[in-house]
């Protein structure tokens, strides 16, 4: 957003809202409505309202404003990106893609435009095109979320090794961001390369020696490598660390960790006990539900 636009908006809001420089969304929209009613073709005001409506999950209303903006200013890349998102959210998928194409034509180095088109292409069954867009976007900026999306798309196409190598490169560009480490380990395992996964896990443990989840993960990697005795030792080590942490500070997350370690050690009943205690305290904790699903599956398998 250009500063002049913001100044204009804030002047309007200053008159409409005496109390606050950051009024609630509804007040902001009311102020914009009033301003636009007197200046119906003000591109900047329409852009602001369109953006706000889209963020408030009102894409159809946003689309009305954005279409006026684009009629007045057809080459506005930001408006084209917003229009693409609004069209997609209202079910006009092909039109959304066309808007994103146009945005990239106008602004080929717009990270937002590239990422938006990647999302659209992936949703419309063109993962290859989505990956191309993400590659271009990631050449502009190191975005962890985009690296993860790229890897997911590659894995879905069974290009697992490519995904793993891409994540390895992303690790270097992102200071070994934790989400990328976890994704990379998982991908190396899927690629049948537990030794490479193990190297990553060991490196992560050096960086975060107090995280018992990494020790459990190490056990998982060793299991996949067929080194079951070492895996059992890792799980036991993790359990000891968790119990020590629990003695200092009893948290639901640690109880889930405990259940996780116990389950891997085959102590299913104890694992269920730890999990039940965790769920009693925090019924909406996603990791607890994931473990419950796994334990339920294990029970069913027996």
């Amino acid at each position, binding site marked *: 957003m250009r500063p002049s636009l913001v100044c204009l908006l804030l002047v309007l809001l200053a008159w409409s809202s005496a109390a*606050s420089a*950051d009024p609630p969304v509804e007040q902001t929209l009311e102020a914009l409505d009033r301003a636009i009613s007197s200046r119906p073709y003000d591109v900047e005001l329409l852009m602001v309202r369109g953006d706000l409506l889209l963020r408030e999950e009102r894409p159809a209303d946003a689309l009305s404003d954005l279409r006026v903006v684009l009629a007045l200013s057809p080459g506005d890349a930001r408006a084209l990106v917003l229009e693409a998102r609004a069209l997609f959210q209202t079910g006009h998928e092909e039109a959304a893609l066309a808007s994103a194409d146009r945005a990239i034509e106008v602004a080929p180095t717009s*990270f937002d435009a590239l990422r938006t088109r990647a999302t659209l292409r992936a949703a419309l069954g063109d993962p290859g095109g989505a990956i191309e867009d993400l590659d271009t976007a990631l050449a502009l900026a190191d975005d962890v979320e985009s690296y993860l999306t790229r890897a997911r798309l590659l894995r879905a196409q069974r290009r697992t090794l490519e995904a793993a190598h891409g994540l390895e490169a992303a690790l270097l560009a992102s200071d070994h961001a934790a989400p990328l480490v976890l994704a990379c380990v998982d991908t190396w395992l899927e690629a049948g390369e537990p030794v490479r996964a193990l190297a990553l896990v060991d490196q992560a443990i050096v960086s*975060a020696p107090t*995280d018992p*989840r990494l020790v459990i993960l190490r056990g998982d990697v060793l299991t996949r490598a067929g080194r079951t005795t070492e895996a059992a030792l890792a799980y036991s080590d993790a359990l000891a660390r968790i119990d020590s942490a629990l003695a200092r500070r009893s948290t639901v997350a640690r109880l889930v960790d405990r259940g996780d370690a116990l389950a891997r050690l085959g102590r299913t009943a104890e694992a269920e006990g730890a999990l039940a205690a965790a769920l009693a*305290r925090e019924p909406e904790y996603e990791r607890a539900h994931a473990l419950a699903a796994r334990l339920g599956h294990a029970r069913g398998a027996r």
Partner: protein
Amino acid sequence: MIRVVLTLALLAIASPSLALAQARTPYLQRATDTGMHVVWRSAAPQISRVCYGTSMSSLGSTAGSGLMETDHDASIGSLTASTRYYYAVALASCSASTTGTATDWFETSPAPGSTGPFRLWVVGDSGTGDANQVAVRDAMLSDTAARAPDLFLHMGDIAYNSGTTAEFDAHFFAIYAEILRHTPVWPTLGNHEAMSSSSATETGPYYEAYSLPTDGAAGGVASGTEAYYSFDYGNAHFIVLNSQDVSRAPGSAMFTWLESDLSATDQEWQIAYFHHPPYTHGSHNSDVEIQHVQMREVALPILEAHGVDVVLGGHSHIYERSFLAHGGYDTPTTSAGHIVDPGDGRLDGDGPYASGAGGTLYVTAGHGGAGTSGAGDHPMMFFSEVANGSCVVDVDGGSLTLRNIRRDGTETDHVTLVRAHGLTVLSPAGGSSHLAGSIVPIAWTTSDATTTMVRIEGSLDGASWFSIVDTTANDGAFDWTTPRRVAAMARVRVTDVADMAISGTSGPFSLVSTAISTVIPLGDVWEYSADGTDRSDTWRDGSGGPWPEGAAELGYGDGDEVTLLPATPVQPTYYFRRAITVDGAVTSARLTTRFDDGIAVWINGQLVFTRDVDAGLDYATFATGGTDDNEMATVDLDLSMANPFVTGENWIAVIVKQVDAGSSDLSFDLSLDLGITVMVDPDPTDGGVDSDAGSSIRSDGGTLRDGSTTPAPADGGCGCVVVGGGPRQAPASALALAVLLAAGISARRRRACR
């Protein structure tokens, strides 16, 4: 237009340095116990060099690129923790004779984990550049004159109106220049900064202004982005999230990182902050706007599962401070069932909140300068005030106190959290369930060898405390006969009699009126008669003792026995018995036996289970079929016709028979799980927390919510509550059974001593 002109006039008064335009005086970033970044911006290129040293008169050490630049970021490493360093910037060279000034200094962070006191300044939505912002700043400076804050935490909306470079200069760097010279600042991005900056590309004035850790180098794990990050200071871990312009979807990169970061920290205090608070009725409504809703629904379950103590936010132009709360994730938010401690959390009031015991403190600090507004009636909030101000937080070992300093310098609210320090309650475990009136083992451990005697207290609501024992030896264990009351949020607190600071509180646990209890586990001790004596029918009530005792498995011939019984003389029948004490009505019974070859079980003389003894139960009769070695059988006893259990002492009597005189082995073990319902006393308070009750307005403009007594019992406080009911109420699932078994519920057992 008049308003705009007035604002600019006030800005000029408040910020004389505005005339200097683009120059930013030195400020401190990425503070750790061993390093510091000194950052500044010059109007014209100058040498990027910092001279520093521990003596103001000798800044002999050098950092920085030494190049001619306008944007400077000098990284200083290999420093000593908790040490003051003086510095000077843009000098041609550094030597032992280089001198500094009394205003340009910084102190390195304490070593992670160290428990010395430190102070935080918490400000949000300050960046107007007007007189309100200045007044808030000056009120803090006046309040903290004797001890300045060690860290400056900004909740976002740092530079109104759109986070431009000029607005950062005028509304942040100029106004806080003297503070920033020696107080490291750790910001989070607000919606107004997002108008000019992008977190996906980490570009724009916000990302140009700050140098934040992406690699976990300041504590925590690497996030790979400056949009969200973490750092340590002393015994606290700070988690800074982005609620504005990164994905807030479950499983997103930020929340994946959050899980990893919180799993990796072992710090005593955990403090999280982000721009959009999860609970607010100020200038914004957290039930309406999507950022608030998503942070509440997605981030809070993670933060609370990891035991984060304090969550701070801004955005809503108001000061709001919650009760100790847990689990309020729904939209719209209700407080019912989510207020862990309905007290005021004040040392000089109802007492501090117990941190680490399942609750979190939520604070909206969006009152740092922008115009305030709102109803201030959020049900999770104990105190709300529609007035500009900021928060000062003092952390000292296991104590954390937050104070609200209004713009006129008045302290209008304070709250203290106390963390168990040096003493950890190991059981009862948080989340466990125990039968009301049963004996619950209390276990604790102390790290301070000087603790000799402790006081133990209990609470049925986590807020009101009663004495369990005034003084007992610090031996780590005490058996507590719980009250006959149903309670969903019971706690136990153990405190050093000589030093109240050494104290620990259990997580919340339940007292229930009906529970499945393993009254006899496998492997327990039994009396036995294995000398060839025919005991006839006179032994099943404990008569004719004493008998020898031994732990199961009892028998011979298999090699897995704990207690070896004689194989000779040949005995068709072996006898086992033991007593249990049941305190309540037995509504279900599950019996599990390991036996070889035939077995019969009586409870209080009533035959309840047989297997392979169809030829008769007298001593000389053999079993009618051989079993597999160590065969297990489980049966749920039908108590609907004739319930053999009585309140008080119950005798469990067993015979195990050989299949013939030549049998090579004998085995016996038995476990008994009982569903027990107890009569509970009515709740004397005849009421409970109505946490959505109305609020009262304080004379100073703050709004206090009335906390009240204790949670109402499930039956409305009128006697026996049957949770499961029925003669045999099977657990809803194996998981439910595991809940109860893991909870360690146990009826009192008395060993036979006749």
